[in-house]
């Protein structure tokens, strides 16, 4: 039965490879490139064992462990450092790659009716699934071997052949495991979005179970595939048993996917898309409700990311003093100010990075309006008794609220983590104030985006140039020795560097006025111009 069900699998494998001849190499090159770049960068940044030990000290806290997993802190070689900092994250990316590729070739093709075309040919019913599994298996084996041997080829002292191969194989077996997960969900879920969503949910769940286990009880981590990955302890203890478990589970998942595929009809699924709401909530029946609703997922994802970013910056605050001593590059970037600790002086730089990053989601929220217009969805709203002013104002409120939440969460995250790792921490007001002081600059950026929407709708993309410009001139300004007036071209160049500098209200008032002017001009333009759709 199995043989005939997989008839013509050979040509399907060739076909699958043909369809992904660009996609798969791009994924592999990207992942392998980062894998070999990191140890080189670490070697460059921490050339001596002393410096690495300082780093180990800095990272030895629960917040970091929850984020990247346990590391061999006692013997923190370049190899151990690479494993500690990168293995888990890379494994997550490999898992994601496998999920996306599998769903693309299975449920997506089924949903689009493409595999119907194939099934009418002398092709076995399970051939497509197994061709996909075969291609993904080969992809992950190539990934394991190439990244393993490349790491070894770097010739770094602490990175021996066994550790390197284990590192690569740990990545590859994670890929296999999530290939299996995605293959099963491709049978279970009716839509490709559903299958992708469920598979990614498993990936995230694996990450969180491991995070909980790593900071409380390591046995819990063993129930997570990603926990198994960190248990390989590549470049230190070199444990191979977790890989065997991962490969074994993958094989079981492959079999389960085949079984589920064999017992279901083409196009059918075990889980059905649950019926959505047949009525709108009262909240949805206004432009502001509509905009919030359509951006909800992006908003929540960004909010979580900003909080995590704040926490991760905050978690390294504990041992910054010893870490900074002797690092010329970082010292140069900081504002040399008497009477403040290095940690305090580091805060404005962190806040700037977070402030500029926190500007990205509100600008995306603002530009959503132009996206909606290009997709011809604004005309339905404007054909109802909704004025352009109300439409634009609704979107502005969403964007401004978005920005406020983002910058707040990054500050709160930083404070929470700093509170946990520092003996003599900062007051909440100090940290939150230092982050919130960037909000007027963010308002200018939001205002500029709105101005473009109203006055130059073809050039709304230019706002991103301004964001990148702000980042380069302000974050790297000290390093590049740029004249101060260039920094001042960005709103972020006017923000007082709290808590090192004194709070100054003049630039704040100035920025808010600029934002207000941009917003007013944008409104005038938007009310006068043609709406494309």
């Amino acid at each position: 039965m199995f043989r005939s069900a997989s008839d013509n699998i050979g040509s399907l494998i060739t076909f699958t490879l043909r369809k992904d001849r660009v996609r798969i190499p791009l994924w592999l090159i990207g992942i392998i490139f980062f894998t070999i770049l990191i140890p080189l960068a670490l070697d460059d940044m921490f050339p001596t064992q002393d410096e690495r030990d300082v780093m180990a000290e800095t990272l030895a806290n629960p917040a970091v462990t929850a984020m990247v997993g346990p590391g061999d802190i006692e013997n923190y070689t370049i190899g151990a450092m690479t494993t500690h900092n990168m293995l888990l994250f890379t494994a997550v990316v490999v898992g994601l790659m496998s999920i996306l590729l599998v769903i693309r070739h299975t449920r997506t093709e089924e949903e689009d009716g493409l595999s119907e075309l194939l099934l009418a040919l002398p092709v076995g019913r399970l051939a497509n699934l197994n061709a996909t599994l075969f291609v993904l298996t080969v992809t992950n084996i190539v990934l394991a071997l190439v990244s393993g041997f490349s790491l070894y080829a770097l010739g770094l002292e602490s990175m021996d052949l066994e550790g390197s191969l284990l590192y690569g194989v740990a990545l590859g077996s994670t890929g296999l495991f999530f290939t299996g997960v995605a293959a099963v969900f491709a049978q279970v879920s009716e839509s490709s979005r559903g299958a992708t969503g469920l598979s990614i949910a498993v990936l995230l769940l694996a990450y969180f179970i491991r995070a909980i286990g790593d900071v409380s009880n390591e046995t819990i981590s063993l129930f997570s595939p990603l926990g198994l990955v960190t248990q390989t302890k590549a470049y230190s203890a070199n444990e191979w048993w977790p890989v065997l478990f991962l490969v074994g589970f993958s094989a079981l998942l492959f079999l389960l996917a085949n079984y589920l595929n064999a017992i279901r009809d083409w196009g059918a699924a075990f889980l059905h898309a649950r019926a959505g709401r047949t009525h709108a909530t009262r909240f949805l029946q206004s432009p502001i409700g509509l905009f919030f609703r359509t951006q909800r997922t992006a908003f929540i994802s960004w909010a979580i990311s900003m909080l995590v970013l704040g926490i991760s910056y905050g978690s390294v605050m504990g041992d910054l003093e010893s870490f900074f001593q002797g690092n010329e590059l970082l010292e140069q970037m900081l504002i040399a100010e008497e009477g403040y600790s290095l940690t305090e002086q580091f805060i404005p730089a962190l806040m700037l990075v977070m402030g500029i990053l926190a500007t990205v989601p509100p600008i995306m929220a603002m530009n959503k309006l132009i996206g909606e217009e290009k997709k011809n969805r604004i005309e339905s709203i404007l054909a109802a008794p909704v004025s352009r002013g109300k439409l634009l104002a609704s979107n502005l409120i969403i964007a401004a609220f978005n920005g406020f939440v983002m910058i707040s969460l990054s500050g709160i995250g930083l404070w929470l983590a700093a509170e946990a790792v520092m003996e003599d921490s900062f007051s909440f007001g100090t940290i939150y104030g230092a982050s919130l002081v960037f909000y007027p600059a963010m308002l200018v950026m939001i205002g500029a985006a709105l101005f473009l929407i109203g006055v130059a709708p073809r050039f709304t993309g230019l706002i991103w140039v301004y964001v990148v410009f702000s980042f380069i001139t302000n974050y790297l300004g000290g390093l590049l020795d740029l004249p101060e007036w260039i920094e001042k071209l960005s709103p972020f160049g006017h923000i007082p560097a709290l808590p090192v500098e004194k709070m100054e209200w003049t630039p704040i008032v100035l920025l808010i006025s600029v934002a207000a002017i941009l917003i007013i001009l944008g409104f005038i333009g938007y009310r006068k111009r043609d709406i494309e759709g």
Partner: protein
Amino acid sequence: MSIVEVKNLHKKFGNFQALDGVNLALNQGEIYGFIGPNGAGKSTTIRILLGILKASEGKATIFGKDAWHDAVEIHKRLAYVPGDVNLWPNLTGGEVIDLLIGLRGGNNKHKREELLERFALDPSKKCRTYSKGNRQKVALVAAFASDPELFIFDEPTSGLDPLMEQVFQEYVQAAKNAGKTVLLSSHILSEVEKLCDRVGIIRQGKIIESGTLSEMRHLTRTNLLVETKEPIPAIDEWKGIHNVQKDGQTLDFQVDSEELDAVIRYVSQYGIVKLESAPPTLEDLFMRHYEHKQETTEGGNS
């Protein structure tokens, strides 16, 4: 009383003259058919009426108010269904219907449920999964459920199957009976012919023909099919006769309305065996203008 009035409307997109002096007027309680080939300016006219585009020149008023300045006031009393309905993929059909009704301020639960049933639309599905026809149904349900004074439809049935087209026509007819005014832009000429009291044909940004169907027919040709005992000599040379096709003793041709009397007198001399006449369909009217356009673009003259 004119519900919609458009006078000498011009619209330029850069160098492209999309509208070149459009005039039209809709009276209370009538269904006005707005027809013309793609790119003739139907949707541009409608979008100016909705205040989404700003006229370069000319005047557009609805309910006696300016379409651009008083857009919000006007929109409280009208419903619009675009030809290409684009919806938010992550909202369900039911949510979008409520949103559109809610924005307009009306709420008629009973009518909404009735419409969903008549149009056979499942409101619990995400708009992502809807076909073009189903997306149009969402917009139609929202429009009919909100009970406005004026309906503006821009090719509303291009994705509907014949059964649903029938349902649509019933609701339009019911709206007319209730005294509502309807502007119906359409490609489906049989639909326009069936529903509309008056018709305007737009071409290259100008209304080239408008009036009731019978008025327009009067200005045009009648199809004649004649079979006579003796052959009719030199029929093609008669004034006002076009497109003569011979099949033995049977002749098939079109006659300009003002020449009809003379032609019948002439033909009857030869002993009529069979005579069939048909009024020109809207399609004939439309095609005549359309052919005319092709001839002129080819440099001919007619």
